[in-house]
């Protein structure tokens, strides 16, 4: 190489160095709590699909950090003076991922498909006389009678969320999975890169028009600040944590509580509790069979249990749990201790006295014990111990969660493959009021597994749905709670909180009852 050529090469390299590297694409690599196998958030209530929905789709309304329902795709809405007509107009510039404009027709079709599947949607549609298109951007909902449900249902934060889809997609039979994943959300699902069991990929939607307001909970401006979100499926918790520590992934959605110390010990990792309301542990009765067909025997369980034992047994660290003697999550508008004072104190003598009064004949409680989910595993053994101290006989059957899910749908007697009780956990956002709370549905055969059957509870739930005044709604919710201690459908066992584990270079994670990916930056 002669001198002139050498100088030219050095100059070229120097120039490149001055220009600097091209702007790199930022990819947020996340290990979610589960693999994405289904992509229709209306067809299934699975939380992983709900999170997929929030990336790919948008909603008409959203719940903000204070629990208020705010417009999201809707620009403005009007409620007639008689509170029977809601007229909603969409924001300017809303477009599907294929570039076509979002229309009122799309939204009407989406609401109909969602309402066919969702219990709150069904309740709302019971009040709807007409759901019709006014013009390309406006539609109206005309009611038979006033209800406070409309905005709450359309801004429902958790499964099933009323996500908006193009009309051609929304007209799919609600019991058939959609295959066209076109949405209008801040990210676009890359179906071509989706490998179930391995990864799901979302890229920033360059044409998304976020609201001007700052993000708050699920509401406000949804600004995508990373170019790409990759959900990596790592089913083994230890491997996922190792991947985070090694910097191969940026975020774990739900590391197990017993491994928090390992994460806290690493200088490059931080923990963030995203959901201020957390989750609620619940003991569910099957009222079809002895001994829990007798409400008085179910009341005895309220005396045998205490929440602290359950929370200590599973979560351990008091920083991540709190007792909450309320059916509705503490910190939410409907929370109240009414009728629960004096209960859940493990008063075994009182429990035994009630059992004697009820004529309990020693029929064993068939308690289903889920063994494969860390957040549920220790609940049933604690329940068994407390029930036995309270005078019950207990026959605990251990099984994996999927077996439990299948078995709980069976109405057969416990001796023929049925059950008496099991324990589970609810995301607080799913149980904010008596209509949302599935376990309070006491409509007999139409109720969720456990099939409680009580006219009083159903009457109060209907009254709640009709009421539009928040103070009166709260009063009704308290009445529901009183009734649910006389005719127990389930028992709340306290609140617990999880944490995201994140690399230190990940910031902007929002507090919300659902894992959100807008506003997150990666430096």
């Amino acid at each position: 190489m002669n001198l002139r050529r050498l100088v030219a090469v050095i100059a070229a390299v120097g120039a490149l160095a001055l220009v600097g590297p091209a702007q790199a694409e930022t990819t947020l690599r996340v290990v979610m709590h589960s693999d994405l196998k289904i992509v229709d958030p209306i067809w299934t209530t699975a939380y992983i699909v709900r999170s997929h929905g929030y990336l790919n789709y948008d909603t008409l309304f959203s719940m903000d950090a204070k629990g208020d329902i705010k417009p999201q795709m809707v620009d403005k809405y009007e409620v007639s003076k008689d509170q029977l007509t809601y007229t909603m107009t969409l924001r300017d510039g809303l477009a599907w991922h294929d570039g076509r404009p979002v229309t009122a027709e799309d939204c009407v079709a989406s609401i109909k498909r969602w309402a066919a599947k969702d219990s709150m949607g069904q309740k709302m549609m019971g009040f709807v006389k007409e759901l019709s298109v006014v013009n390309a951007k406006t539609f109206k909902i005309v009611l038979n009678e006033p209800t406070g449900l409309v905005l709450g249902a359309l801004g429902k934060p958790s499964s099933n969320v009323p996500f908006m889809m193009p009309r051609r997609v929304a007209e799919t039979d609600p019991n058939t999975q959609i295959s066209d994943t076109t949405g209008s959300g801040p990210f676009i699902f890359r179906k071509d890169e989706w490998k179930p069991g391995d990864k799901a990929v979302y890229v920033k939607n360059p044409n998304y028009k976020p609201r001007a307001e700052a993000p708050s909970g699920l509401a406000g401006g949804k600004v995508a600040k990373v170019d790409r979100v990759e959900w990596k499926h790592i089913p083994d918790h230890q491997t996922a944590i190792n991947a985070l520590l090694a910097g191969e992934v940026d975020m774990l959605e739900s590391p197990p509580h017993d491994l928090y110390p390992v994460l806290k010990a690493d200088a490059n990792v931080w923990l963030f509790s995203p959901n201020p309301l957390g989750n609620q542990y619940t003991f569910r009765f099957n009222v079809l069979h002895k001994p829990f067909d007798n409400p008085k025997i179910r009341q005895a369980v309220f005396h045998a249990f205490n929440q602290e034992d359950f929370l200590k047994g599973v979560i351990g660290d008091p920083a991540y749990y709190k007792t909450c003697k309320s059916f509705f999550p503490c910190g939410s508008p409907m929370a109240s201790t009414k009728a629960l004072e004096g209960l859940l104190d493990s008063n075994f003598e009182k429990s035994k006295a009630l059992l004697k009064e009820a004529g309990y004949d020693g029929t064993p409680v068939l308690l289903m014990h889920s063994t494969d989910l860390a957040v549920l595993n220790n609940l049933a053994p604690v329940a068994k111990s407390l029930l036995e101290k309270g005078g019950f006989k207990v026959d605990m059957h251990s099984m994996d969660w999927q077996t439990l899910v299948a078995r709980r749908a069976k109405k057969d007697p416990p001796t023929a493959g049925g059950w008496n009780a099991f324990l589970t956990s609810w995301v607080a956002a799913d149980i904010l009021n008596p209509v949302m709370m599935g376990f309070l549905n006491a409509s007999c055969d139409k109720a969720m597994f456990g099939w409680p059957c009580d006219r009083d509870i159903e009457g109060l739930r209907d009254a709640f749905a009709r009421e539009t005044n928040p103070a009166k709604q709260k009063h009704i919710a308290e009445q529901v709670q009183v009734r649910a201690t006389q005719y127990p459908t389930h028992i709340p066992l306290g609140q617990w909180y999880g944490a995201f584990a994140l690399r230190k270079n990940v910031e902007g994670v929002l507090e919300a009852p659902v894992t959100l990916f807008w506003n997150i930056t990666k430096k």
Partner: protein
Amino acid sequence: MLPYIGRRLLATLPVMTVVAVVVFLLLRLTTGDPAAIIAGDNATSQDVAAIRSKLGLDRPIVQQFGIWIGSVLRGDLGESFFFKKQVSELIAERVEPTLALATCTLLLAVTLAVPLGVLAAWRRGTWIDRAVMGLSVLGFSVPVFVIGYVLIYLVAIQLGWLPVQGYQRLADGFAGFIQRLILPSIALAIIYVALIARITRTSVLEVLNADHVRTARAKGLGDLTVLFRHVLRNAAVPIVTVIGLGVALLIGGVVVTESVFSIPGLGRLTVDAVLARDYPTVQAVILLFSVVYVLINLVVDLSYTFLDPRIRY
């Protein structure tokens, strides 16, 4: 030879039929309901029933079996309950990682185990023999997942030499491909090395005491010539047999290793499908594993004729 191969291939049909019936029945007898899993936690009994009907799970078992086996005979493995994809498509996506992992493991195991076994036999009773046999016992005794976690902690977390998890397709670059295969292959190969090394040692020891080896030595042939020309070839049949039989071990190991190292292969697909009660996928993958196992053992049987001229079919 060809008639023998034909007969062996025909003999796989009843084996496959038995596997198909057993797998189908076992899955139906297992507790759990795919419809309830698909519907999600907040679903009502009506939702679950609607999905069960959609999947055809409300039909009699005999009818379900008839529909499935008919499809399989037409080359259609069905559609996954969960992924809304053809099972054949799912398997095709997952074959490469599993094949790569199995091949690397086999290469690593054979490359290490055969020389170690020969060395142990050649130096019988010395510290080398005892060390090889001691390590073999250790290799047998420690579960694959423990080896996996220890390797991840030492090599990936502490030293940062290799990635913790994942898989990169060969088409996306050889360096990334091989980097991600080293740790899982080592973890999976250890038990295989232990097995092959022990069998190699025993087999070589047996041949070393044979008359023809004594004759070769008496003729004044060098140690290496005796070893390679007269010992190894005659000791090969049991070694090849154990490699073939070990494929079952490999299949089981692949399931665990792919989970620990988060490799999206057939092993992980099997675990995910079993946990989700995805009947069509489990049935197809197990049938595939059975076919592979039967065919590998056929290849092993055929290889005897090349290794030992006295064997003829």
